[in-house]
């Protein structure tokens, strides 16, 4: 009896499934599209989020996690307080502090010219800074030079990127001047990479000696400390009483890197939500495949009958419909993964991010599509295999 066993080669099983899909190309493409959209959405979300995270990590690496900002807490009357004048030197005395730089808000308005009303400051301010600020922050100069020690006593300023934009200064080809309460200050540079210091981004920075010469005494309102990474927690603990022994509770310590970490956490929550939405799209795609396959079984009763007459066993019929479903979803998954990677590439290029599409996401997406195809095809395939051959060949007759 073994002589009479029906046998289907593996290649032929795939070939039959392919024939089934090829016979109805329009329907196959539309059905696979549902899966493709779901997969593309998920891959794009994961890819874009990974690229964003890679960029964030790059930024963290550049900035380092050992930067500490010391600011004044609220004053007695609720207004911002100042730090004691000797706060920078006190902070510098703490052993593991490698570098300290101070900045002090100058109580004047800055404008493009003296013709602009005093109230229209554009949210910009003048800040007196130490020459080493740019180095301590790990920021860089977009153009020009910083108010280093050579320029600290001159009436010159460096603008943050936002300040430069608001003042309409895009280049330094001609001498650019801005107006600050009776003084004209020359712009010598524009600093960039200050994303984590919005107050500095929106300011014009001038050397401490120059600021005091023009506008009187300036107290530090912020200290930036570069410290030994392992000592960050210890230093954070002793800083308030060191920089302001009289009122340690009026000292506010922040770590800019924490802001990045918080941003990453928010991004990952959004990513998870978007992945959940993509999964719903995928589920709907799976239901569409199951639906089309059930319909296909009803329409193809005669084909099933002929295949049984040609010697197909129930298992052969079942595998044919199951493979069709898997191939349908799998092709949708492949197209979707490609599409998702393409969207990620486009987004990363547009936003200047580092492209990072995790290989696991691509593999996982295609595997998920295949799994959905298999699950969606189970019922139709089993239904097709249960049609008795004599009934199937009678078909609609």
């Amino acid at each position: 009896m073994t002589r009479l066993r029906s046998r289907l080669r593996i290649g032929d099983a795939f070939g039959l499934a392919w024939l089934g899909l090829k016979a109805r190309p329009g329907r196959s493409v539309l059905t696979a599209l549902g899966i493709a959209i779901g997969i593309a959405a998920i891959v794009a979300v994961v890819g874009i989020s990974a690229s964003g995270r890679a960029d964030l990590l790059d930024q963290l690496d550049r900035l380092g996690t050992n930067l500490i900002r010391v600011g004044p807490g609220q004053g007695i009357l609720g207004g911002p307080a100042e730090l004691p004048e000797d706060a920078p030197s006190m902070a510098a005395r703490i052993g593991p502090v490698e570098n300290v730089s101070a900045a002090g808000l100058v109580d004047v308005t800055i404008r493009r010219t003296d013709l602009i009303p005093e109230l229209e400051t554009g949210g910009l301010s003048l800040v007196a800074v130490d020459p080493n600020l740019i180095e301590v922050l790990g920021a860089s100069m977009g153009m020009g030079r910083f108010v280093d020690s050579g320029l600290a006593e001159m009436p010159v300023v460096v603008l943050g990127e936002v300040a430069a934009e608001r003042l309409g200064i895009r280049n330094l080809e001609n001498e650019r001047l801005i107006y600050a309460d009776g003084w004209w200050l020359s712009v010598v540079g524009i600093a960039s990479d200050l994303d984590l210091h919005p107050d500095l981004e929106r300011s014009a920075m001038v050397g401490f000696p120059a600021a005091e010469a023009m506008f009187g005494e300036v107290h530090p309102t912020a200290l930036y400390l570069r410290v030994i990474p392992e000592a960050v927690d210890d230093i954070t603990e002793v800083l308030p009483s060191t920089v302001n022994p009289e009122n340690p509770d009026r000292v506010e310590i922040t770590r800019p890197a924490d802001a990045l970490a918080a941003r990453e956490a928010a991004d990952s929550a959004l990513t998870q939500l978007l992945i959940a939405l993509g999964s719903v799209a995928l589920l709907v795609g799976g239901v569409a495949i199951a639906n089309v396959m059930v319909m296909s079984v009803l329409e193809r009763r005669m084909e099933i009958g002929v295949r049984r007459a040609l010697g197909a066993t129930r298992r052969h019929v079942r595998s044919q419909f199951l493979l069709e479903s898997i191939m349908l979803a799998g092709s949708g998954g492949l197209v979707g993964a490609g599409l998702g990677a393409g969207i990620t590439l486009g987004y990363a290029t547009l936003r200047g991010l580092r492209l990072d599409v995790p290989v696991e996401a691509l593999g996982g997406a295609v595997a998920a599509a295949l799994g959905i195809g298999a699950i969606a095809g189970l019922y139709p395939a089993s239904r097709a295999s249960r049609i008795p051959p004599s009934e199937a060949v009678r078909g609609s007759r």
Partner: protein
Amino acid sequence: MPVLRLRQVHKTYPGPPPVEAIRGVDLDIDPGEMVAIVGPSGSGKTTLLHLMGGLDRPSSGLVEINGVDVSRVSDRELSGLRAAKLGFVFQEFFLLAGVTALDNVAQGLVYRAVPPRDRRKLAAVALEKVGLGDRMTHLSTRLSGGERQRVGIARAIVGDPAIVFADEPTGNLDSVTSEEIVRLLLDLNAGGSTIVVITHDLDLASRFPRRVSMRDGNLL
């Protein structure tokens, strides 16, 4: 020894009310025979064909195909028997759309695990046999009705089966084309094939060497 042996075969479809489609049929068909089973619509001839072709099992009685009692084998073995020993020709041809005549015929060997290249070689021989040597690469949808039925016949004979069953093979064809198909079946029989044709057409049946008439589930 007969290639097909039926003894007191009954087939009843469960009701309500139960329908007894075949009522105690005895029939022997010897190798190389060509038999027409003729009867009006509803006489049970298609049910009989399904029983003889192993597409269905009798409610009682013996159906022995090529020495195999169909009541004693599993569904899988019965499929194997169909793949290896039986060929079917259908009234509506049932060819795969968008596939060439050659590949349609090769489908007749797909459940025997014949490698694709050999399948195509055998399919080409079968197409030559039915006079379609010049239509091998034509898509089935581009063929005339008569040509499609020839492809259907080639698919039935490609595996060199012990018996070929044809269910109203000329039912969808005009008289000229029907005549060509009848001649082809007679030629195949002359070449040694055992052929059983089911038809309601008495004129067609009269062309075959042996005729068996059916009425109300009985052979007359």
